[in-house]
Each structure stands twice: as structure tokens, then as C-alpha cells.
């Protein structure tokens, strides 16, 4: 008999396809796991509303739970409560930084705070950085330039 804990643990193997160093659990994408009479229901939430990785993650979550031997798996995509970058686990923030992606600052729900327009360079740690483009290679990233080490980098946008 599968337990929710086992499923949560297994879902740590499912990575965000665009940021393969962090799992869907660490990103706060998996919200709830319910097991009832062999039937598993996983509730997930999209990060950015237009995120193209959503369907890949949904399929991978379903497959991973099936691998554990669940008879029936349903993955529900819930919009509310809305996903926020504050849900990214602390450990995952360090992984994002090591990946070269500046982690989003924690804003405690006040999304206007994020417009201080500064990001710390993930390579040298300097705050002497400037925005080059609000929309990077994906919707969720902003392109910055570090004036200290003179390298471009991306920041995961706080939402």
C-alpha cells in the first residue's frame, strides 16, 4: 500500500524540464498528494500561467507515481491558490544559483517590492547589476548584466 510520504519522496525525481537541477517538489509545484483505496490523486499548480513545461511536468508526475505501482493516478492542475516564487524551497534557491540562475527574492506576497530592480549576480555575488531585458529565453526569466564581473545572467522572476 503506497503512502503519501513515499509518493512525495518519489516526486523529488521529477525535475523542472527548464531547470533540471530542481524538482517539482522543491519548486512548490506539487501541492497535495492523496491516497484513497489504491487511487492516487496529485494536485499540482502551474508556475507562470503560460509555462510550456506544464504538460511535460504533469505527464512525468503521473508516470513517476505509476512506476511505484499505483493502480490509478490522477493529476489535477489547480490555479488557486496561485503559485508564488516564495514557495521555492531554500535548498532549491542555492541550486538555482549554482545553476547560474539568480534566485527570486522572497517578497512575502507584496509583489511590488520586487521592483527594486536589483539582482545579485549568481557568479560573483555583486549587486551592481542592470536589467537588459524583462523577458529572457523563457517567460519566467529576466536578463541582467553584471557590471562587476561583466557577464550577462538570468534571474528567475519573483511573482
Amino acid at each position: 500500500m503506497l503512502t503519501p510520504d513515499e509518493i512525495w519522496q518519489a516526486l523529488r525525481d521529477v525535475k523542472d524540464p527548464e531547470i533540471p537541477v530542481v524538482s517539482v517538489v522543491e519548486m512548490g509545484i506539487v501541492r497535495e498528494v492523496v491516497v484513497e483505496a489504491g487511487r492516487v490523486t496529485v494536485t499540482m499548480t502551474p508556475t507562470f500561467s503560460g509555462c510550456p513545461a506544464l504538460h511535460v511536468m504533469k505527464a512525468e508526475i503521473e508516470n513517476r507515481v505509476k512506476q511505484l505501482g499505483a493502480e490509478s493516478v490522477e493529476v489535477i492542475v489547480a490555479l488557486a491558490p496561485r503559485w508564488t516564487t516564495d514557495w521555492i524551497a531554500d535548498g532549491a534557491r542555492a541550486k538555482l544559483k549554482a545553476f547560474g540562475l539568480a534566485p527570486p527574492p522572497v517578497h512575502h506576497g507584496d509583489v511590488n517590492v520586487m521592483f527594486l530592480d536589483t539582482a545579485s549576480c549568481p557568479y560573483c555575488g555583486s549587486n551592481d547589476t542592470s536589467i537588459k531585458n524583462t523577458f529572457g529565453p523563457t517567460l519566467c526569466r529576466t536578463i541582467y548584466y553584471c557590471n562587476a564581473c561583466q557577464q550577462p545572467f538570468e534571474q528567475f522572476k519573483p511573482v
Partner: protein
Amino acid sequence: MRQYLFDAYELARLTETVNSAHKPIAEISIKIRPEEIYHYRHTSNWVKRLGLGTEESNQRTQAALDSLWAYALQLFVPLPGEAELVDANIVPDPATLRAAWEATVVPWLTGTGLSIPNPAEPATTSREQHTEHLITLLAEMQEVARIEGPDVKW
């Protein structure tokens, strides 16, 4: 400029629809609004850069504003049935929305070296009808499909 005027509208609208009496509209608005702030910031900064850039960039941006202003104002002309939705608190009142929109775009545009076109009247074509621009838009968007034919595999 078109995207800027629309982003300001969309942000003003989402700011209201987060309180919509229709739950799915409220939920999706709560989700999208923080993202829309980025869209607004992106286009507003471009308008500023172009408005305060060179003499030529200012003139071109002003010309775009002059040609688009009346169309932007159409966004606040009520559509058939909209009043019922406003009464039910499902969507915001277009007049409230226009006031919020103008409070954002007027100071921003004037602060970036642009002047607000006069008169402040919406374009007379209805939002229920397409303008002549749709024909060329569709032709361009369908160009590849028309050349390749229906059997093409990508």
C-alpha cells in the same frame, strides 16, 4: 505603443477582476496579475526609452500614439450585455476602468515627452466589427500554411 496602451488596460482590468464575483475569473486574475506587471513594465520602459530618445524616435512614437489613441479608447465602450455583467460584479465598469487607465497612461506618456492626442473620443468603428487591417493580418499569418498546403508534416 499598441502593446503599451493595451498592457496598461489589461493591468487596470486585472486589478479589478481579482475581486470578480465569478470565482474562475477572480482566481485566474489573481494568478496573472503579478505577471502582467512585468508586461506593463517592459512596454512602459520601451515607450519611455523611445519618447525620451532622439528627436526622430520621439516623433515616431508620437505618431504611433496619435494613430492608436482613438482605438485604445474603444476598449472602454461597453459591449452588448456588458452592463449586466457589471451589475453582477463579474466584470468592472468600463467608466471606472477608463479613469484608472488614464490615471496611469496620461502622466506616463506626458512624462516621456509625448502629448495626449485630442479629441479624446473613441474611434467610431465598433469593437464588434473587424477593421480593414484584419485582411492583411490574416494573409500574413496564413502565408506558410497556404504555400505548404494541407498535407505538410513538420
